[in-house]
Each structure stands twice: as C-alpha cells, then as structure tokens.
C-alpha cells in the first residue's frame, strides 16, 4: 500500500530564512509525488509535482522540492521564507503502477513564518 509521512506537525522559521518541510513516501512501484498548500479557510492549491526527470522540481510561489530515490524523500524547500507562506502543507503520492488515480495525503505540516 502506498503512503506518505510528514514527520513534523509544525515548522517554525524566521522571515528571510530558508525553509524545509519534510516528506517521505512508500509505494510498491515508482511514485508520482505532489505538494499542496492550504491557506486558512480555503481549499487546497497545487504547488508542484515530480513525475520523472530532474530530481529538483520547481513550483509556484518560489517553492521547489527535491526527489531523492535512495532516501524515499520529497522535501519541500524555499530559499527565503515569507510571512505569507504561513499555511498548512500536504505531501501526496500516487502509485505509478496503480489501478486508480487516487492521491494519498500525508498528515500535513503547519508552517509558521515569523516576521
């Protein structure tokens, strides 16, 4: 069965500092990996995805993520955090060889950026 783990419930970072939100995955085959962001009282927004190719994926709002097959990780990063980045971040995985297109979500990480 496929799954993702987000080991940190909350990440605190000062504005202007780099940020990392961690995600590890488990699938039987090759993964498709996604990051979503949820701002307060709003729906989920797609940030970026890894399908194949370059391990470093660039997405919306200056975010990027690095796919590491040996460590089965897909950590979300940003070089310089903004207060407006404060939100709930979800990692998700889809099994490339799966019979359906369903996404499995991690438990979420609350990012708090202090001014």
């Amino acid at each position: 069965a496929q799954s993702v783990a987000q080991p940190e419930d909350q990440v605190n970072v000062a504005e202007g500092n780099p940020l990392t939100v961690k995600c590890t995955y488990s699938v039987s085959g090759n993964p498709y990996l996604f990051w979503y962001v949820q701002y307060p009282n709003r729906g989920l927004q797609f940030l970026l995805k890894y399908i194949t190719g370059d391990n470093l994926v660039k997405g919306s709002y200056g975010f990027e993520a690095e796919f590491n097959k040996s460590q089965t990780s897909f950590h979300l990063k940003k070089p310089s955090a903004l207060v407006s980045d404060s939100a709930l971040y979800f990692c998700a995985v889809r099994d490339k060889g799966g019979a359906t297109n369903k996404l499995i979500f991690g438990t979420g990480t609350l990012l708090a950026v202090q001014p």
Partner: protein
Amino acid sequence: SAVISQKPSRDICQRGTSLTIQCQVDSQVTMMFWYRQQPGQSLTLIATANQGSEATYESGFVIDKFPISRPNLTFSTLTVSNMSPEDSSIYLCSVAVGGQEGEQYFGPGTRLTVT
C-alpha cells in the same frame, strides 16, 4: 486546470438529518473524488465518483452513509446521511486532470457542523 465550485460552502445540521453537497466543474473530467478533512487532520478519500456506474468506496466508508451521484462528466453530489457530531468535517470535491501524471484540483470545501 479545472475550476470547481461546491454548494453549500457551510452548514449547521441537526443530528439524524441528511445533507447533500453539490460539486460542479467547469470542464468535463473523468475522475472525480470526494474527500473528508476532519478538524486538524489530513484528507481522507471517501470514494471515487464514477460517471454512469456506482461509486467506488474506500475502506471504512459505505454507500448507505455516503451515497454519491455522478449524472454527467461535470457534476457530482455527496450525501451525508443520518448525521452525527462525528460527521462534522470539511468535505472536499476533487478532480484529476491529465491522467496518472496529472495533478488533482480541489473545490473550496463544504464545512459541515452537526449539532
């Protein structure tokens, strides 16, 4: 991409009653999903809404409690039946675009409170 709307955006319901949530997409899509997000929790897939056939439910979810309709490729409904306070959640409609490699887009959610 896809633009998704949901009705109602929120509701407060009495225990024992039922609520039907509508999901409308601005384009024809094959795959539609219904998720539940309980307070402070991640997203849990309830079912895949299949056009022209019965929905496919995930473990722990049954048709009698969460009947789903999918009359065409742009519309679906989820009914939460015989509600109890444990059903208080945000219910999210989602569509998959671009096959297995595509991302999912989410509606704004329906915030349900059962008293």
